[in-house]
């Protein structure tokens, strides 16, 4: 497979979409985590983000996308990042921390202060809109 020539850069991705997580998506699907995607990575991305992709697979990759520091759990810092990106920083610091606290409160099954993949899946698979919103169309 031509995995050396075709590189899909972050800038191109940025120009394409207004998704607040576009960089994360690029990083998660790129091989070395720097956001530069080969054709294979690109295909991976669209196979995961397609309408046909199974729920569990989507949940797995959603977890990776929201896990900003790649430590295999979503901690408070990751949550803060997510909120800030979602609201473009329009919430005050207290509000952000309150939201993060609430999220941890709701979804953290074992009360260890961070969301593991298991917690995340347990939560996300019940979300009514997850499947309908977590896909990308070219």
């Amino acid at each position, binding site marked *: *497979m031509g*995995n050396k020539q075709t590189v899909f850069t972050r800038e191109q991705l940025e120009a*394409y*979409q*207004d*998704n*607040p*997580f576009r960089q994360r998506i690029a990083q998660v699907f790129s*091989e070395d985590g720097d956001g530069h995607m080969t054709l*294979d*990575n690109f*295909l*991976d991305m669209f*196979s995961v*983000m397609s309408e046909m992709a199974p729920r*569990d*697979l989507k949940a*797995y*990759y*959603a977890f990776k996308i*929201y896990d900003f520091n790649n*430590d*295999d759990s979503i901690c408070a810092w990751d*949550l803060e990042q*997510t*909120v800030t990106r*979602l*609201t*473009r920083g*329009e*919430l005050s610091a207290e*509000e952000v921390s*309150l*939201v993060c606290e*609430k*999220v941890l*409160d*709701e*979804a953290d*099954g*074992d009360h260890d202060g961070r969301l*593991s*993949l*298991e917690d*995340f*899946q*347990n*939560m*996300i698979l*019940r*979300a*009514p*809109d*997850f499947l*309908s*919103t*977590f*896909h*990308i*169309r070219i």
Partner: protein
Amino acid sequence: MAHKPELGAPQMAARTSVACSQLQFPGDRSRRKTSKKQTSKAEGTSGRHRAQSGQKEEAGGNLRPGSPRRKQSERRRRQEELGEQKRSPAGRNLEGRRKRDGKASFRGQRVPPEKEKEVPKEETWKQLKKHRSTSLASSASGGESLSEEELTWILEQVEEKKKLIATMRNKPWPMAKKLTELREAQAFVEKYEGALGKGKGKRLYAYRMLMAKKWVKFKRDFGNFKTQCIPWEMKIKDIESHFGSSVASYFIFLRWMYGVNLVLFGLIFGLIIIPEVLMGMPYGSIPRKTVPRAEEEKAMDFSVLWDFEGYIKYSALFYGYYNNQRTIGWLRYRLPMAYFMVGVSVFGYSLMIVIRSMASNTQGSTSEGENDNFTFSFKMFTSWDYLIGNSETADNKYASITTSFKESIVDEQESNKEENIHLTRFLRVLANFLIICCLCGSGYLIYFVVKRSQEFSKMQNVSWYERNEVEIVMSLLGMFCPPLFETIAALENYHPRIGLKWQLGRIFALFLGNLYTFLLALMDDVHLKLSNEDTVKNITHWTLFNYYNSSGWNESVPRPPLHPADVPRGSCWETAVGIEFMRLTVSDMLVTYITILLGDFLRACFVRFMNYCWCWDLEAGFPSYAEFDISGNVLGLIFNQGMIWMGSFYAPGLVGVNVLRLLTSMYFQCWAVMSSNVPHERVFKASRSNNFYMGLLLLVLFLSLLPVAYTIMSLPPSFDCGPFSGKNRMYDVIQETIENDFPTFLGKIFAFLANPGLIIPAILLMFLAIYYLNSVSKSLARANAQLRKKIQALREVEKSHKSVKGSAMVKDSGYTLKGSSKNATQFQLTKEGTTLHSSSQSQTPDQKAQGPGTSSSAGRTSLSTTKHIPVSPPPRDSGQPLPQTHPWRSASGKSARRPPPDN
């Protein structure tokens, strides 16, 4: 403890065989039957092996007594394992394989299922090749037949590979890996499946595989073709990506409605209108099919036709045109019967399709009951619509997410705030009072207008406005009341979500009230016409009598029959009702289009082009662009459909008009949305409200069924028009058919069935059945909730195990689990948890009970986790092959199965 795995083994075997039969390899079904048996047997033995090895390890190397042969092999295996442990982890398995291959004894191979899962995929493959070559050699030398064990082993492998192919999509692997894995698995399956058959079977098998491949390809092509055939898919997707899924949901609903109407159109046109046009008496042959003399000169004027009078009124589009002949044409088609049955089946089909789509909608969202626990999490993780590809939409989405966060923060902080509760209450009561006033006023207005229109209809030359007053007033009410309601609702200070529900409910009530007032007024009209019918009947009779018996005509020549246009006739209330609905539909359509043109398009043009020379920013400021009003549009569509259902019995052409309407509005609204609307600020969730719309549609269907059923059951049909003329009631046509066309005993049976003594018990029985089913479903829901709780508890136990195991693994010098594989294990286990079977239910309590106890030492903990795996494997990828198909699982299983390093 020791017998647990044994308990798991037969279960697993059974499940595997089920999975085998589920595997979709069309074309070798007959083969499957035999192979299934074999496999399950094989699974049974392998499962037992695993169980034994588990026991053995638990006992710390104590071999259990067995057959000497097995004992030997297990001892050898044991030695190998011990030897392997000394080697480096990477090369270990491979070398073990080689050693065993070098011995080329098959007994060594019999145990592998246990070992296989420890081996990474590539190695298995290499080993397989090697093994194959040796076995080929042996089979070449030793004759055709492969040994039983080899066969089962290969069979297992093949099944595994097949399963891998089937579940490939679920794996979080990069594409390249998936591709290589898939190719390998496919090649393997292709190669070995053929080898299992003997002689002739091989060729047959190859042929079958070829056909299966072709079939798969064909199915895929056909699937693509089907997707391409879905009408307006591209348009809707385009809208979806610009406006989010909520606006698209309206268009999907519209498309669905179009499909339903198309079916109704096919029914009505195919079974009523076309037979009538082809085989019925032609226009002008009898009075009911002729324009009366008085109307004749104006009958072709456009203004008359536009009101559905003149030639259109006396055409096959309306009830009155049909003749009451029992059969028409050389086919002896029973038109009145067909008319009645189609009228019934229109409702039957609609009911069925609405309920079916409701059911399928609810099936999609099973776990809706407990969403309330995760408000913030859902907002955080699922509120962003990844489909959005438009910066404007994205801006709005950001804004709406921010507001929703703020809203829930406020809700959270001040859930018990409620300042000045009296004022709020007062305002709410006031608002409801105002709205009820509005509703009553609009109802009275419609009643008044309909009454007036009846007077107008008696007068001679009335103006255009007076003729169309009813429709205009109804449309205006529909246009102006919803914004008025919204303004009043601002008083109430509800949460927007609740406010939206109220708003929808109010608009629904308005529409419904208007429709029913309209119907009541129409019913008055109908009764009036019915009371006049007798006099008209007499007049007709006397006219004909006088005509034929008048003096001054040559008696020898029979008089030519009176020209049908000259025969006096009744008012035919059915056609009048049909025309009323037809007009309402058309005017509704026109008002919708004009609203879109004026309200959306012209406004957008004004805002866009006058912005250059205006004193404030028009785009951001006051007029701005219009939003797409989803709820209003959906409600409009639903009520329109209600009118179609009501009117289609009396105006068969109405469905045709509606199909045209939906078609044009699809294109027109798509264009209008894309050209002149902006995305929403407040997001109206599509996934939830879909069934809400369907529920409304069902309600409207029921409500529109009532008047039609009433008219059919209790009003006498007109005496001189329509397919049921001359009968006492419309449904007499069924009795007539039963009496004349069926054998007498069937008639007797029907008469017996219609006996109230039988009907009342039947209804009672139905009620009992409903009650019973309801209680059953309730108890099932309770059981479901309990199971969910159990899963939750199990999950927590699992998790505590894992944390202990994780620490044990760090100690384990041979292996360091990578984070990803650990996660994957958890992922797998979650899946197991959610698909927990009731069969394994009995085991959960003692697992829970054992939980804290077993977590004391690392070794015992790992044993208890191994136990979980055979107990509740997910039914999707069933038992045995799991170890090989899931590398992460094998990693954990391996570490779990190994005896603690200290021993």
